[in-house]
């Protein structure tokens, strides 16, 4: 493969290209899978990592921010965690390798390594578009994950926690999940580090909801302080499908979480809630696109950011409404609680509306602690530092409470309180 003439590869780009040459012999899949991987790495070599000149990456100059990529580390050990919600069924990926012994009652499950090995995964190893750096890197390197099929009418009482844990090296996972008609389930996609060594993680979940499916999907990213986490979730919503998607970033050094939604079925409803808890010298980017392609659909997006220290945060939210998608109701808001003068947040809302009978809106606010609320709490005897912590917590807890699933609400409130205890 030839590199584009004139482009100087960065250290990280070189490391990724070399890692591919070393790893490809070990990665599952041949034939169509191998061919798809070769296309992706070739495209990566041509395009390199995106810079701020690429519109979709304007606020996250990956070429500048990604200074190094650790080599694969097959010996890296990692521990498992207790599930976030007690009683969940845990599907475990340790150091990039899925535990094939996991099972969920009533759900068809296999490892993604098996799907790569028999070639059925080949069709999914494509980039979404020319700016899909995560799709390229993940598709080229993906080793394992889970393929889940929820048959029509499946109703799970307990959540399923897909838990990926690593301690170093590179991890590339993928989770294609289909929910049949009227399926009801709660999935917690959790990414965690077992130690402080720098890891490089990419992960893609590719989910579709058939007619009437009602799903809660939580992405909880709690990587280590030195980790790079590039996540993506691709979503297709069928007729009358309802998805509550909660994205919680509470870790990592360099993080990009992409959310791409195709609203393909009338009557469907997307509820996106994002919580970014940012501290230290970190960079966290949540990039969201939704395409309302059919009439009579709704989506609401609420992003809440709490930023300490010298952390930087980004939210890009794009709502597209197709010419036929009349009666679309889409509302997006991004609220930031900025708790340090050196912290920074960029919000870029984009509305592309081609239908005339729609309700779409967006708003972004940056606020400080409300002094009247602070006075009220203190006037009841709550000391200032504790009152401040309560208000920061309240700012994000407010949207967690919307879940109306008590064990899940308590677990997420625990995550938030734990993070704030360490950072506030």
């Amino acid at each position, binding site marked *: 493969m030839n590199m584009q003439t004139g482009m100087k590869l960065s250290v990280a780009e070189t490391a990724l290209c070399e890692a591919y040459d070393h790893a490809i012999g070990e990665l599952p899949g041949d034939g169509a899978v191998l061919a798809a991987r070769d296309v992706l790495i070739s495209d990566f070599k041509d395009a390199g990592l995106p810079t701020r000149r690429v519109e979709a990456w304007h606020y996250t100059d990956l070429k500048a921010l990604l200074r190094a990529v650790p080599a694969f580390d097959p010996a890296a050990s990692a521990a498992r965690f207790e599930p976030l919600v007690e009683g969940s069924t845990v599907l475990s990926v340790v150091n990039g390798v899925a535990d094939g012994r996991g099972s969920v009652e009533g759900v068809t499950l296999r490892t993604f390594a098996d799907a790569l090995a028999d070639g059925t995964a080949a069709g999914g190893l494509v980039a979404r578009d020319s700016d899909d750096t995560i799709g390229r890197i993940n598709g080229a390197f993906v080793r394992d994950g889970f393929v889940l099929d929820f048959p029509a009418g499946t109703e799970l009482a307990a959540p399923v926690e897909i838990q990926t844990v690593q301690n170093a090296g590179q991890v590339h996972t993928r989770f294609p999940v289909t929910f049949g008609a009227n399926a009801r389930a709660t999935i917690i996609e959790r990414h965690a580090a077992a130690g402080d060594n720098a890891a490089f993680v990419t992960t893609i979940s590719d989910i579709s909801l058939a007619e009437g499916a009602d799903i809660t999907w939580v992405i909880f990213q709690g990587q280590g302080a030195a980790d790079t986490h590039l996540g993506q979730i691709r979503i297709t919503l069928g007729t009358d499908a309802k998805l509550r998607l909660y994205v919680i970033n509470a870790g990592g050094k360099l993080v990009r979480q992409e959310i791409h939604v195709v609203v393909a079925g009338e009557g469907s409803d997307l509820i996106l809630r994002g919580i970014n808890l940012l501290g230290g010298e970190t960079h966290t980017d949540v990039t969201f696109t939704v395409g309302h392609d059919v009439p009579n659909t709704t989506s609401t997006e609420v992003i809440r950011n709490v930023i300490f220290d010298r952390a930087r945060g980004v939210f890009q939210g794009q709502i597209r409404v197709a010419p036929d998608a009349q009666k679309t109701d889409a509302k997006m808001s991004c609220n930031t609680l900025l708790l340090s003068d050196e912290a920074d947040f960029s919000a870029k809302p984009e509305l592309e509306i081609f239908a005339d009978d729609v309700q779409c809106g967006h708003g972004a606010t940056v606020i400080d602690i409300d*002094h*009247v*609320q602070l*006075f*009220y*709490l*203190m*006037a*009841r*005897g*709550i*000391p*200032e530092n*504790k*009152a401040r912590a*309560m*208000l920061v*917590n*309240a*700012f*994000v*807890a*407010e949207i967690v*409470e919307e879940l109306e699933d008590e064990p899940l609400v308590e677990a997420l409130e625990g995550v938030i309180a734990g993070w704030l205890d360490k950072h506030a």
Partner: protein
Amino acid sequence: MLEIKNLHARIAEDGTEIIRGLNLSVKAGEVAAIMGPNGSGKSTLSYILSGREDYEVTEGDILYNGESILELDPSERAAKGIFLAFQYPVEIPGVATMQFLKVAMNEQRKARGEAELTTPDFMRRVKDAAAELKIAPEMLRRPLNVGFSGGEKKRAEILQMSLLEPKLCILDETDSGLDIDALKIVADGVNALRSPDRAVVVITHYQRLLDYIVPDTVHVLYKGQVIKSGDKTLAHELEANGYADIIGAAA
């Protein structure tokens, strides 16, 4: 219990002087009513007593049990037993009412060197006090003051007051926005707290509340000063004749 001496205070942001040489003393066991026309400084006085940052004291002093409280922040004043029932209780989405009550009660206990309440003890106290004030348990499950009606907010303030057992209670226009039934419930709650070791300062625009919380003393505030003091008959006089005569006499 409370002694305000030649107090001058202004809005911190723009320097507007609101309190201009105010003198007032309230004894333990006393219920003092502070009345006055709009803009006389009634609410400002309540904020200054509870330590709100937006105002600065430029002259004079506030003594509470003989000690100046000017250097104490609002939480320290609260822990010493000063309680302000807000005219406009603040909505705090995301803070559960029960959690707030528990933290407030226990933080005050901690500051006074007392043991924290056990959960069953806390629950029992809240349940009893809420029943007295006819507060439905559903209300306590909501975030603090969020979605409460005007009357519910005022009752929630009195609930907090009875749970926190302050020594100096300041009621800022607690009657505003209340219908007569709610007014009676709130007044009963306040009267239940009357005791020889507790003082109550009732700030109000109208005589109506004082029919239910009968004051020992009445003070008329005008342009940041107490211009006349008397017993409860002064309130009736004001109701009948308005403020004009008294203001005229003081001028």
